[in-house]
């Protein structure tokens, strides 16, 4: 049996999902979109699975995430729907409930946050709601993970039965239009009620046209248009959707009046929220506070003082180099590999993957801390304090989460842009995020800067980071004035109440991201290391040559002259940059190999600085490029994301090289 879990955003849906289920059955993407689809076994219910749908206010989609709900209802096979409802915001939550019940599919309503509601001094008469809506319901508090609640839900699911579709008394004009569309749908093979589909089409759910080929699509669109005109002309409402919405709102309002009962006068917890918010979103305090928070997060992840992540990475490195590489290399020798094969496996594959894997602990700590900030609801406040500043550059306050994540790794940062509903703004953010200096680029800066400069090393590295942010902002500004005119005008954000995040949910999120990171090490970097090692150890005529006579040196030597004007036209630097496209970490390991450990010998102060600037801005790594492709779903923008940074890097590096020439 399969059940769908649906509900508004921020109502504890993930908490309920994790609490109700065990071992995952399948995690993948919905066809055609990049939204992740999670299917897990329901605990204590043999043979039953739960599908986690993205949080949505409405069946009609307003973003890619939400489009999945319509898709699932139309195309997936399922035996029932679990609708989770935030008891403290009944009025809005019930809009989705009404739409789901109109579908007439076996359903169970789960009223969550009963404890929070009680703290506000209210209770809900769920029996009464069940009676009015003609559907079974339970009251729970998902955070408490109470076994009785769980068994209660499972028992109700086992006895879930057919329900009669909810029918509201919509305006006659709408009812007439529904009938007309119903007639036209006769020609289509559908798994959902045609009456429901007719209403959804009238409401403006354009996702339906995308997911099914309606035979009479043209005629249906005509009816929708005509009905909209009649509604506006006769002043029934301001829009067709508004007319449908109004009927539902009235219906819901009656339910809430009847079923939400005030039991005692309490100071609403929201006043507590508002008091904190007055400080955290204060124009003078908000931004400094945010900077302190971010500084602490980076200090804990990457810093040397109190740096948990950094410390773990050191241990992990010792373990990897001391034990993993040591034993595997002995084993390889034992089974009789030597020379070329030995070099390929130990110096190529193991060293290459290791160079990236050692960052895993730091990244895990970073993601864990960022998930805590998200889970508490603080990030919504950051979006507010940063909106004014970011809006000047064609960003949106909501872009702050991807930008921050970008300091860790561009891949999850690009995925985090899904929360930006405006398509143009989202692409602007995706295309500019790679300029934010990710953690993989730090080793390049620290090794080269410290080997060519004697003083001001930390200051110069900080300057490179700031340069990255400036390029990000200016590029966004450029895009919003050119390709994406008109973007960046809307910002609508719901402020969720502060909550203490749950360890389980946060660890899950952090681990999921870490898994992707490991996967990257196991695919791109594995392949890349093999290719790099082979290229630097063979020539056209023989194998086992030294790097400077290798195929790599001939290829890179051919390209190198284009870097002469900006100071580093050597084949070594060029090979490092080429291999860096596999993963930025590889730039450093290549330089170390090619300069036999003395990177400083290859650069002057000026060419070193120019190289560092270039490498901080040039072409994103392959994983990032692949993510850009899958998130924008456009070859054009993916190509742009490769070419544009190269041009920008070249220009900025030549400016640095020119101006620097006067000082150094």
């Amino acid at each position, binding site marked *: 049996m399969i059940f769908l879990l649906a509900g508004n955003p921020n109502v504890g849906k993930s908490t309920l999902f994790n609490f109700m289920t065990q071992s995952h059955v399948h995690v993948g993407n919905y066809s055609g979109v990049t939204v992740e689809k999670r299917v897990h076994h329901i605990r204590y219910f043999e043979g039953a699975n739960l599908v986690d749908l993205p949080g949505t206010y409405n069946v009609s989609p307003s973003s890619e995430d939400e489009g999945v709900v319509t898709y699932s209802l139309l195309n997936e096979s399922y035996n029932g729907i679990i609708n989770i409802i935030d008891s403290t915001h009944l009025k809005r939550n019930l809009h989705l409930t009404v739409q789901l019940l109109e579908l007439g599919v076996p359903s169970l309503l789960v009223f969550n946050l009963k404890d929070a509601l009680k703290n506000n001094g209210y209770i809900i008469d769920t029996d009464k709601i069940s009676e009015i809506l003609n559907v079974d319901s339970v009251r729970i508090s998902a955070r408490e993970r109470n076994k009785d609640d769980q068994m209660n839900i499972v028992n109700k699911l086992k006895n879930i039965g057919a329900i009669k579709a909810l029918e509201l008394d919509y305006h006659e004009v709408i009812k007439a239009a529904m009938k007309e569309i119903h007639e036209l749908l006769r020609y289509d093979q559908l798994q959902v009620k045609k009456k429901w589909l007719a209403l959804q089409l009238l409401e403006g759910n354009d996702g339906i046209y995308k997911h099914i080929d309606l035979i009479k699509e043209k005629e249906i669109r005509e009816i929708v248009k005509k009905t909209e005109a009649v509604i506006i002309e006769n002043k029934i409402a301001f*829009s067709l959707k508004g007319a449908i919405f109004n009927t539902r709102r009235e219906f819901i309002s009656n339910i809430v009046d009847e079923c939400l009962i005030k039991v005692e006068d309490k100071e609403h917890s929201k006043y507590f929220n508002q008091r904190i918010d007055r400080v955290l979103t204060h124009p003078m305090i908000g931004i400094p506070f945010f900077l302190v928070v971010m500084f602490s997060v980076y200090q804990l992840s990457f810093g040397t003082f109190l740096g948990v992540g950094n410390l773990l990475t050191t241990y992990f490195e010792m373990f990897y180099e001391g034990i993993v590489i040591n034993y595997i290399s002995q084993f390889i020798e034992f089974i009789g590999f030597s020379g070329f094969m030995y070099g390929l496996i130990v110096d190529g594959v193991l060293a290459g993957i290791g160079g990236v894997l050692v960052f895993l602990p730091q990244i895990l700590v970073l993601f864990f801390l960022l998930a805590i900030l998200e889970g508490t609801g603080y990030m919504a406040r950051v979006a507010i304090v940063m909106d004014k500043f970011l809006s000047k550059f064609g960003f949106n306050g909501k872009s702050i989460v991807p930008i921050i994540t970008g300091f860790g790794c561009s891949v999850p940062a690009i995925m985090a842009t899904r929360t930006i509903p405006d398509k143009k703004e989202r692409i602007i953010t995706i295309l500019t995020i790679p300029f934010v200096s990710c953690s993989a680029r730090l080793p390049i800066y620290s090794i080269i800067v410290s080997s060519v400069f004697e003083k001001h090393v930390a200051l110069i590295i900080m300057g490179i980071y700031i340069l990255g942010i400036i390029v990000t902002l200016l590029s966004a500004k450029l895009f919003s004035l050119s390709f994406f005119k008109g973007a960046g005008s809307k910002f609508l954000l719901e402020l969720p109440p502060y909550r203490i995040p749950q360890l389980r949910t946060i660890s899950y999120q952090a681990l999921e991201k870490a898994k992707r990171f490991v996967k990257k090490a196991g695919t791109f970097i594995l392949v890349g290391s093999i290719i790099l090692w082979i290229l630097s150890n063979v020539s056209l005529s023989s194998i086992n040559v030294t790097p400077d006579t290798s195929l790599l040196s001939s290829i890179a030597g051919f390209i190198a002259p284009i870097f002469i004007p900006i100071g580093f036209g050597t084949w070594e630097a060029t090979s490092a940059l080429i291999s860096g496209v596999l993963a930025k970490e590889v730039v450093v390991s290549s330089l170390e190999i090619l300069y036999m450990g003395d990177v400083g010998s290859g650069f002057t102060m000026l060419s070193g600085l120019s190289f560092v600037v270039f490498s901080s801005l040039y072409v994103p790594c392959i994983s990032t490029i692949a993510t850009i492709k899958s998130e924008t779903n456009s070859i054009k923008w993916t190509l742009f994301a490769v070419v544009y940074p190269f041009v920008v890097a070249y220009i900025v590096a030549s400016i640095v090289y020119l101006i620097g020439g006067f000082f150094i």
Partner: protein
Amino acid sequence: MNITDLNKFDKAVIVAFNGIGKEFRSRLMDMGIYENAHVVLLNKLSFGSLYLIEVDDIEICMRKADAIKIEVQK
């Protein structure tokens, strides 16, 4: 008058939306901002560039450019 004319903690009723596109209207509706809804202006943020309002117990933040387009009556 519109939302930006309200003082802090003023209560008002939304009467009309002027010059707001269909898509954004629809998003506002999903968040509970509709004609006849009761709003409270909770705060002006970022030196008056953002407006924090409360509708049906939900706090929503929007830019001044959009708040101006929401007509209200005290």
